[in-house]
C-alpha cells in the first residue's frame, strides 16, 4: 500500500524496465508529472493512464504523501477540479464518471463548511467516510491486480512441457465444422466490428487474396524471384490478371518489393521483411 506516486501509472513489468506512457512531442513520457502543470499535449495521455476518477484521486493523495484516512478534501477537490477544468478547456472527451466524482467532491466540501447538525439517528453516512471507503476498496484491488501481474504465469515464466507422440494405435478425431457455423462466426465478428459499413471488404476478390497468400509462400525466405515466374501462362488471361492484381495488392500493403536493377533489365520480387 505504499506506492510512490510516480509508480502509480507505470505499467508493471516483471523485468522492471520502464515502459513509457506515451510519446509526447517525440519524447517518451515515463514519469507522471510531479506538479500540477501538465504540458497540454500530455494531458490526454495523462488522463488515459488512469483507470477512472478513483485512480486519479488516489494519485493526487499519494503524490502528497497524504494518508487516505486524513485526506484534505478541499485541497484534493481543488486539484481534481483543476485537472478536470484543464481537460475540459482542451475539449477532450471526458468520461461521465469523472464529472460524477467532481460533483461528489463538491458536495462533500460544501457539507464540511456547514455547521454539523446533531441528529439522533446516525443513519446518514458521512459522505467523506463513504469516499474514503471507496478509495481504500479500489486501492486494494488495484494492488491485487499489480500482484497478479507479477505472479509467474504461463507463456512468460512457465512453459508446460510436451513431447512428440509416438506412433499411436488410432488417430485422434477432430471436431467437425459446418460451413454454416463458420459463416455465422464471421457474421458475428463483422457485426461487432461494424465492417459491413465499409465497402472496402466487399469489393475485394477472394481469389486475389488467395493468390496473395500463394505468392507470399513462394517468396518465403530471402530469395529473389523473377517477376515472370509468378505467372502461370496455362491459367489463361484471367489467371494472369488475378496474379497481377495480387502482386499490386501486396505492393500496396508493403508486403513485397519489386526490384529492377537496370532499365529494361529483369524484374525481381521479394518479401519486404527479408530485407
Amino acid at each position, binding site marked *: *500500500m505504499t506506492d510512490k506516486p510516480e509508480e502509480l501509472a507505470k*505499467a508493471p*513489468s516483471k523485468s522492471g524496465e520502464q515502459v513509457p506512457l506515451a510519446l509526447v512531442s517525440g519524447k517518451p513520457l515515463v514519469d507522471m508529472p510531479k506538479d500540477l502543470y501538465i504540458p497540454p499535449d500530455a494531458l490526454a495521455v495523462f488522463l488515459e493512464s488512469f*483507470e*477512472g*476518477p*478513483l*485512480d486519479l484521486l488516489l494519485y493526487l493523495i499519494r503524490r502528497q504523501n497524504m*494518508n487516505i*484516512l*486524513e485526506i484534505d478534501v478541499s485541497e484534493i477537490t481543488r486539484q481534481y477540479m483543476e485537472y478536470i477544468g484543464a481537460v475540459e478547456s482542451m475539449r477532450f472527451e471526458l*468520461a461521465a*464518471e469523472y464529472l460524477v*466524482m467532481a460533483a461528489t467532491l463538491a458536495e462533500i466540501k460544501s457539507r*464540511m463548511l456547514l455547521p*454539523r447538525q446533531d441528529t439522533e439517528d446516525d443513519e446518514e*453516512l*458521512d459522505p*467523506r*467516510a*463513504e469516499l*474514503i*471507503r*471507496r478509495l*481504500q*476498496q*479500489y*486501492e*486494494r*484491488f*488495484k*494492488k*491485487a*491486480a*499489480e*500482484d*497478479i*501481474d507479477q*505472479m*509467474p*504465469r*504461463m*507463456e*512468460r*515464466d*512457465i*512453459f*508446460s*512441457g*510436451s*513431447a512428440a*507422440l509416438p506412433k499411436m494405435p488410432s488417430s485422434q478425431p477432430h471436431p467437425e465444422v459446418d460451413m454454416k457455423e463458420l459463416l455465422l462466426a464471421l457474421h458475428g465478428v463483422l457485426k461487432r466490428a461494424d465492417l459491413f459499413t465499409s465497402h472496402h471488404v466487399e469489393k475485394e476478390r477472394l481469389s486475389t487474396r488467395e493468390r496473395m497468400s500463394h505468392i507470399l509462400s513462394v517468396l518465403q525466405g530471402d530469395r529473389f524471384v523473377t517477376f515472370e515466374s509468378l505467372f502461370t501462362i496455362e491459367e489463361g488471361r484471367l489467371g494472369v490478371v488475378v496474379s497481377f492484381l495480387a502482386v499490386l495488392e501486396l505492393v500496396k500493403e508493403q508486403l513485397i518489393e519489386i526490384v529492377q536493377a537496370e532499365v529494361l533489365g529483369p524484374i525481381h520480387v521479394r518479401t519486404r521483411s527479408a530485407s
Partner: protein
Amino acid sequence: MNEEHLARIQAIAEAALLAAGKPLSVEQLRELFTEDDRPPRQVMEHALVLLEKACEGRGFELRKVASGYRLQVREEFAPWVARLFEEKPQRYSRALLETLSLIAYRQPITRGEIEDIRGVTVSSNIIRTLLEREWVRVVGHRDVPGRPAMYATTKQFLDYFNLTGLDELPPLSEVRDLDEIGREIEKNMQGEIQFESSQGERVSQGDPQDAPTASPEQTLH
C-alpha cells in the same frame, strides 16, 4: 508393491503428462490403465512423488496445479526458453487485471459490482477476453432486475498462474471498517484529539464485513 512395477507406473505417468502437455489429475492418470491393471490411488500418488524426485536437477519439474499435475520447464530456465518464441508474451491492460482480480477475490461478482468498486465501466471486450481465455465463467445470475451474470474464476485461471487454489493468491490488503473511519473523521473534525498516525496498529484491526472475502476460498468451498 514391486519396485519394478512402480517404476513402470512412474514412466507411464511421465509419458502421459508429456503427451498431454497440460495438467492431468490422479484420476485421469489412473484411467489410462485397463481395469484389471489400474493402480490404486495411493500407488499412483506414490509414483508421482517418485517422478517428482526423478526430475531433480533436470530441465523440468512436476508441479501440482488446480486441475492436476503438470510437467513444466523449471522457472530458472525461462529466460533461455523464452528465446524460442518470436512473439513477446502477451501483456494485459490494467483494466483487465483489475477486473480479473476483483473476480478472483470477490467471486461470484457481477459486472455492475465490479464497476462500483472500480468507479468506471468495464468494457465488454474485457469480459469477453476473460471468458475466452477461460479464466472466468458465468456461474449464475443474480436475482435482481436485469438478472446480471455472476462471474467466478476457473481452474484454468489457477493453472495459468501456477496455483493449486485461490488461497494461494497474494493476500488482499486490509480495509478498515467504515464505522471506524467515520469515528476517526469525527474526532479530527471536532479537533478534540490530535490524531497520532500509527499505521501498524490500525492495519492489524480486522474488518468484520470484509473478513469472509479476505480468504476467497471460503466463498468457494
